[in-house]
């Protein structure tokens, strides 16, 4: 094709004079003769037919003669190029100029063509492309517009393209001579080459003629492909347009396909019902003898059936290989290609852009360097001029400078040239890519079009074949019908009657069950109908009846009969409706019917029913055929009919039925409807009502379902999610945020339908969607879906909704339960178990480290079993629902490869939803923040150990107690073990929660903490209050955090005890780092900035800024450890971390510092030493917290904390600052007091806290008043000089540790 394009170029020069062409032709011929001869010779040497072989065995590069020839040709080409170029140099007189240009262009192209034809290896896309560009450029010249002044502008481009052509040609030739060109490509089409090569001109007159024709015909357009490609190639955004077109094509096809698919299904449905109709009608109609037109109708039925079979076959064919599939395949192919090409193109463009940018940069650099050089130069020369006798050295220097500048300028120049070349190459690449892309697109589009064409032809042919049958057939039938003479059948019938029967018939028509009578009755009906001109009525009716109400008890129907009697004879539908009851009734009490028989219509009705019945023989069979046939809706009740004008009794012929079949909602046939909406039988809404879809009032344009009386806007039909339940839809149901027990009552197994519905939908199609349950759905759609669930219960159609919406609804439902599935009262137990599990895992890790074979696996298992036992205490409905839900999550987790939702991920998502503590108000309470990881862990455990946890064999009742009894003894050793390595186990636990606390406390405004604190505060006895409040667990956490806060607040002067100081030293070294704020005055600690090498976030503890309170900073280190940046809350990571801690704990325990703090060495020392050991000190959790430490001491730090946090806005859930300010000190006191009581010997006297309280109050009030003093955010009130000394707080803290341990033990015992 590309070669063709060059010829196409050649064609253009046909504009030039014919004379010149002849001239050049002869010229070519003369030039050619030589190499023709040469070629021939070589051919003859070997076998003549083996053209490729010849070239292959004798590569052109080898043959010096050939090279000579090539060189000649190249020279020739170069001359022509030059010639053309010259033409542009001297434009004289537009007309002459035009002629000259065109001539020369033609010459150039001819030569090019000749050269290429001769040397196939030169037939490269590049050359042809460049030639094409050149042609386009030349053609683009507006010759009338050529003036000498804009010469450069006009021809610049042309010169450029001539140059590129020359360049490319040179490249290709040199490549070829280097042997780089793949000869195979040229050899692949020897035949074609020959036909196009000029050597053959004489030999092959036909070809020549063709060629000539080609050449001569300036009007012969380029083949369409070339033209398209060329145009797009010229166009800047050619690729984009092509892609756009491809996209549009694909969309167009998509729409077409959608239509076709719908149409085909409709066809099939329609055909099916037609066929069914015909079948049943046939079976009924053939019952009767002597009916007029019976053969006509019989053949109609037969034809109908056949026709419908044909229809279905056609539809099938269309669906498979005739229409939809090929088209779909094409479309997908196109889409894929489009995407690939787009990417490729973008990549290419990006590269181009980069090259451009670097070029520009290089240019700028070059300019700059040159300027510099100039400057230097002028400077040198000036100084030379000014002080010719200047110091030599200076001159020398300047000269050197100048030289340097020159050198640099040269470098820049070089670089510029390089990047220019680079850009050129890029541009070339881009052009090539563009060309290939365009070609690909074009080819694909053409292919697609081809397919589309074929498919379209198929479609219409099939339609034609399908339809063609009908007219002839109908014609024949109508002819047949015309021949009938009215009354013929009747007379025939009468003639054949046995003598005695007629009389009997007259007397007791429908009473007796004699078959013959039915026959007659039917006939009469038939005729009466036909007299109505409604021939199809019989079949219609029977069909209708088939699907009509089932036979109820006869009693039921009696009133109906009365009603029927009162009906006018034209009220056929009514009759029809009543027909089955009559039949039933008739059979039930045959004797009581006398009067009715006089009414011919009613007789008809009854016989109809009978006739309908007869094929299936018994009323029992009736139900078998119940599947609703289309007409049910239409005929369901008489008054409906009145309302629907189109369905007035007289015109419900087959046509109407068909439309009914196609889409049930009569008046809303044209409305776009969702899948769910299509299940309804819609009619116009009669009375204003509430739309079930959007929950607003519907007055106009409302639709209503006949069966479930769902009301809805017409436009809401598009999105309606509630399917028809075929019974009256219940009123709106409160679903979200209502009690679980209430919800579970509504379903048999106690699992709310919404959970089942959502999970089953997700399982059916969304298990492998990445981030299912993690990603958010669209809020608006989620809300709508919630509403749909409340409105339509389990009838909601989910198949069209995004899985993320569905998963969101499920999460929302669970989250909005007033009490979570795991009831509040079990919360602490579950969290306790999670913590225990965690601890066991840690221990196991330790044991592994210590090479101690531990029964950790067994213990883990035991925890899991205890979870199982605990779960069983849940109410049955909760248990079942949880079981169901976790089973689902387990299945989700099984697909973690694809959906990335592992059990732990699901735990994080569902943790706070399934396992949540009771909260006083809607706020995030501290405890829940603390427990988030455990909530997540618990859910993770449930999911991970689902088979075990929910394995609830009935025998487990006996198992459970035994397990429990076993555990306690076993656990005691475990606890002993724990005690042995107490510091480690308890430490990790403490640390864990401390960290968690920390991690949140850094975020939580202190006021918040204080809320919690307040709970503790009332009782002075800490232990009591703590146990009373929120369970064993949270309060310890609180207590731990408490001291920390206290420390934070405590900006004690350097009055720390000696022991502490020693510890501090240790830690201070650790904590110090280069990240220490420079602006900090570093008060009172000038001696101690031991600039350690800067770790990523080496504790970056500004806290140390506070003199003497470095112990405090140590505290912050604790949480900091756990919140390393890389710690992405994966438990195993933590375990790894813990591997380290116990050991360090041991080591550190021996340190003098620890021995100094004799009272409680273990926890304190470990806490302190963990930090140094922390391998990944990347992030500093407590940094924010610690900052509050700096602040008070160094008001010079501008960065810090707007005090706004001190006064939370009323809108937030934080307590007013006043209470906070007050509570904190109180609370501190509380703790100090309580801790002091037991530890009185070691602890400092309680008076400092009190004094601190006072001072704090005063500081706080000062803050409140002045707002000017910097105070830390969300932090306890700033330090004041008389804060309790750290030593004291330390003591408190130390006291707390054992207490904590005790509690843990308590809890353990409790669990056992």
């Amino acid at each position: 094709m590309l070669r063709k394009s060059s010829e196409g170029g050649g064609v253009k020069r046909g504009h030039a004079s014919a004379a010149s062409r002849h001239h050049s032709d002869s010229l070519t011929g003369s030039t050619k003769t030589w190499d023709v001869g040469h070629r021939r010779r070589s051919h003859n040497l070997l076998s003549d037919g083996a053209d490729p072989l010849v070239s292959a065995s004798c590569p052109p590069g080898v043959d010096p003669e050939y090279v000579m020839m090539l060189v000649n040709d190249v020279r020739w080409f170069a001359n022509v190029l030059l010639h053309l170029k010259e033409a542009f140099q001297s434009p004289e007189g537009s007309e002459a100029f035009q002629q000259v240009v065109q001539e020369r262009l033609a010459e150039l192209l001819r030569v090019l063509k000749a050269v290429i034809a001769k040397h196939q290896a030169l037939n490269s896309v590049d050359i042809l492309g460049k030639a094409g560009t050149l042609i386009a450029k030349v053609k683009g010249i507006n010759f009338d517009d050529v003036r000498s002044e804009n010469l450069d502008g006009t021809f610049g481009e042309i010169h450029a393209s001539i140059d590129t052509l020359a360049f490319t040609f040179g490249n290709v030739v040199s490549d070829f001579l280097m042997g780089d060109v793949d000869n195979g490509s040229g050899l692949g089409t020897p035949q074609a080459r020959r036909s196009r090569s000029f050597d053959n001109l004489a030999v092959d007159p036909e070809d020549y003629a063709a060629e000539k024709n080609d050449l001569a015909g300036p009007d012969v357009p380029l083949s369409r492909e070339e033209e398209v490609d060329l145009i797009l190639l010229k166009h800047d955004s050619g690729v984009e347009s092509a892609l756009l077109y491809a996209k549009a094509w694909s969309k167009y096809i998509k729409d077409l396909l959608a239509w076709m698919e719908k149409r085909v299904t409709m066809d099939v449905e329609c055909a099916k019902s037609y066929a069914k109709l015909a079948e049943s009608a046939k079976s009924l109609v053939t019952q009767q003898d002597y009916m007029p037109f019976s053969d006509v109708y019989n053949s109609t039925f037969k034809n109908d059936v056949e026709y419908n079979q044909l229809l279905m076959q056609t539809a099938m064919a269309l669906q498979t290989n005739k229409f939809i599939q090929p088209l779909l395949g094409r479309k997908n192919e196109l889409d894929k290609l489009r995407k690939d090409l787009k990417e490729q193109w973008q990549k290419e463009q990006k590269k181009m852009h980069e090259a451009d940018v670097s070029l520009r940069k290089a240019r700028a650099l070059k300019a700059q360097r040159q300027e510099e050089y100039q400057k230097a130069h002028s400077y040198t020369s000036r100084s030379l001029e000014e002080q010719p006798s200047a110091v030599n050295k200076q001159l020398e220097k300047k000269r050197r400078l100048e030289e340097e500048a020159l050198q640099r300028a040269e470098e820049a120049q070089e670089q510029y040239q390089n990047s220019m070349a680079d850009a050129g190459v890029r541009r070339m690449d881009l052009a090539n890519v563009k060309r290939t892309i365009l070609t690909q697109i074009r080819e694909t589009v053409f292919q697609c079009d081809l397919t589309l064409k074929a498919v379209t032809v198929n479609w219409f042919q099939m339609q034609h074949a399908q339809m063609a049958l009908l007219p002839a057939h109908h014609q024949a039938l109508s002819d047949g019908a015309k021949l009938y003479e009215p009354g013929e059948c009747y007379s025939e019938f009468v003639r054949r009657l046995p003598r005695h029967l007629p009389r009997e018939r007259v007397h007791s028509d429908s009473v007796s069950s004699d078959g013959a009578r039915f026959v007659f009755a039917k006939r009469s009906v038939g005729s009466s109908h036909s007299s109505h001109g409604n021939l199809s009525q019989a079949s219609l009716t029977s069909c209708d009846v088939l699907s009509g109400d089932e036979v109820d008890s006869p009693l039921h129907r009696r009133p109906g009969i009365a009603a029927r009697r009162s009906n006018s004879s034209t009220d056929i539908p009514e009759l029809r409706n009543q027909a089955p009851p009559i039949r039933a009734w008739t059979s039930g009490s045959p004797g009581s019917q006398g009067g009715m028989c006089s009414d011919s219509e009613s007789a008809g009705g009854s016989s109809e029913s009978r006739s309908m019945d007869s094929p299936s023989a018994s009323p029992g069979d009736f139900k078998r055929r119940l599947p609703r046939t289309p007409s049910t809706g239409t005929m369901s009740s008489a008054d409906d009919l009145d309302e629907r004008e189109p369905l007035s009794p007289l015109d419900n012929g087959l046509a109407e039925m068909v439309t009914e079949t196609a889409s049930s909602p009569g008046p809303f046939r044209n409305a776009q409807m969702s899948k769910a909406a299509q299940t309804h039988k819609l009619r116009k809404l009669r009375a204003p009502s509430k739309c079930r879809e959007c929950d607003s009032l519907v007055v106009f344009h409302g639709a209503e379902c006949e069966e479930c009386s769902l009301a809805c806007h017409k436009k809401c039909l598009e999105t309606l999610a509630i399917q028809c339940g075929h019974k009256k839809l219940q009123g709106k149901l409160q679903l979200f945020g209502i009690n679980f027990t209430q919800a579970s009552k509504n379903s048999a197994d106690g699992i709310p339908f919404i959970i089942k519905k959502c999970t089953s939908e997700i399982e059916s199609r969304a298990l492998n969607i990445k981030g299912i349950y993690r990603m958010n759905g669209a809020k608006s759609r989620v809300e709508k879906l919630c509403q749909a669930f409340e409105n339509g219960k389990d009838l909601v159609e989910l198949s069209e909704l995004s899985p993320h919406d569905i998963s969101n609804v499920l999460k929302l439902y669970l989250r909005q339960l007033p009490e979570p599935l795991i009831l509040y009262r079990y919360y602490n137990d579950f969290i306790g178990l999670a913590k225990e599990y965690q601890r066991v895992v840690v221990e196991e890790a330790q044991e592994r480290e210590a090479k101690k074979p531990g029964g950790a696996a067994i213990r883990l298992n035991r925890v899991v079993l205890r979870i199982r036992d605990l779960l069983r205490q849940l109410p049955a409905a909760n248990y079942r629902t949880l079981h169901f839900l976790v089973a689902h999550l387990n299945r989700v987790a099984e697909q973690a490869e694809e959906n990335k939702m592992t059990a732990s991920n699901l735990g994080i998502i569902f943790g706070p939803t399934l396992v949540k503590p009771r909260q006083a108000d809607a706020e995030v309470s501290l405890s829940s923040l603390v427990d988030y990881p455990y909530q997540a862990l618990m859910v993770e455990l449930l999911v991970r150990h689902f088979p075990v946890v929910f394995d609830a064999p009935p025998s487990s009742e006996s198992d459970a107690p035994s397990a429990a009894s076993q555990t306690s003894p076993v656990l005691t050793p475990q606890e002993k073990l724990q005690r042995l390595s107490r510091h480690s186990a308890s430490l990790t636990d403490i640390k864990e929660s401390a960290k968690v606390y920390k991690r949140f406390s850094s975020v939580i405004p202190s006021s918040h903490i204080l809320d919690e604190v307040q709970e503790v505060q009332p009782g002075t006895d800490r232990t009591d209050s703590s146990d009373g409040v929120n369970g064993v667990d949270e309060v310890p956490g609180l207590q731990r955090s408490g001291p920390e806060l206290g420390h934070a607040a405590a900006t004690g002067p350097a009055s720390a005890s000696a022991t502490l100081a020693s510890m501090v030293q240790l830690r201070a070294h650790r904590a110090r780092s280069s990240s220490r704020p420079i602006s900090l005055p570093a008060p009172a600690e000038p001696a101690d900035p031991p600039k350690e090498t800067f770790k990523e976030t080496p504790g970056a503890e500004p806290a140390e800024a506070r003199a003497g309170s470095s112990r405090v900073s140590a505290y912050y280190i604790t949480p900091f450890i756990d919140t390393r940046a890389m710690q992405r809350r994966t438990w195993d990571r933590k375990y790894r971390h813990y591997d380290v801690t116990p050991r360090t704990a041991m080591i550190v325990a021996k340190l003098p510092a620890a021995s100094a703090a004799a009272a409680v060495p273990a926890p304190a020392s470990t806490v302190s030493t963990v930090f140094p050991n922390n391998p990944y000190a990347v992030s500093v959790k407590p940094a924010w917290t610690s900052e509050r430490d700096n602040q008070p001491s160094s008001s010079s730090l501008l960065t810090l904390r707007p005090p706004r946090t001190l006064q939370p806005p009323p809108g937030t859930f934080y307590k007013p600052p006043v209470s906070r300010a007050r509570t904190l000190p109180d609370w501190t006191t509380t703790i100090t007091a309580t801790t002091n009581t037991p530890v009185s010997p070691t602890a400092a006297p309680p008076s400092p806290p009190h004094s601190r309280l006072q001072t704090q109050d005063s500081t706080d009030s000062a803050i409140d008043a002045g707002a000017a003093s910097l105070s830390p955010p969300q932090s306890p009130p700033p330090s004041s000089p008389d804060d309790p000394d750290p030593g004291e707080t330390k003591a408190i803290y130390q006291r707390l540790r054992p207490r904590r341990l005790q509690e843990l033990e308590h809890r353990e015992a409790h669990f056992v």
Partner: protein
Amino acid sequence: MREYKVVVLGSGGVGKSALTVQFVTGTFIEKYDPTIEDFYRKEIEVDSSPSVLEILDTAGTEQFASMRDLYIKNGQGFILVYSLVNQQSFQDIKPMRDQIIRVKRYEKVPVILVGNKVDLESEREVSSSEGQALAEEWGCPFMETSAKSKTMVDELFAEIVRQMDYAAQPDKDDPCCSSCNIQ
């Protein structure tokens, strides 16, 4: 050295953690674990002044939405991240900004709008211009980043520092007084 508290917000799975970790450690995390909350600290030099960035990487999953107020209260600058291959995440970001304004009670909170995952150009659902338009509406900078290919990540954090500097400038003497007064 100034300290800057940056909070990274955005709905689930948009790559908040990936961005943050890319910035802090220079690596791209392949993991797909939802974050509850992570905290990072890094020193960088922005416009030749050293700064310490304290970055709070938050939970995007809406289960933790209740914690967002807390994050916002404590942050000074906010990076609002959406995934440009997920139109929904772009929609989710709007209420977050409203929430910031509400909690801060201050219009000119330093905010940057970020479309992440620009490496997935072919799956893009949110066009550059959409993001740009939203950013203009908010009067904040807009960037398209990729944590995976480390596109514009450092620039992003440098920019948020500038934003915070800028926000603090009008009242240099007391950087917090403007907000104090408002509150």
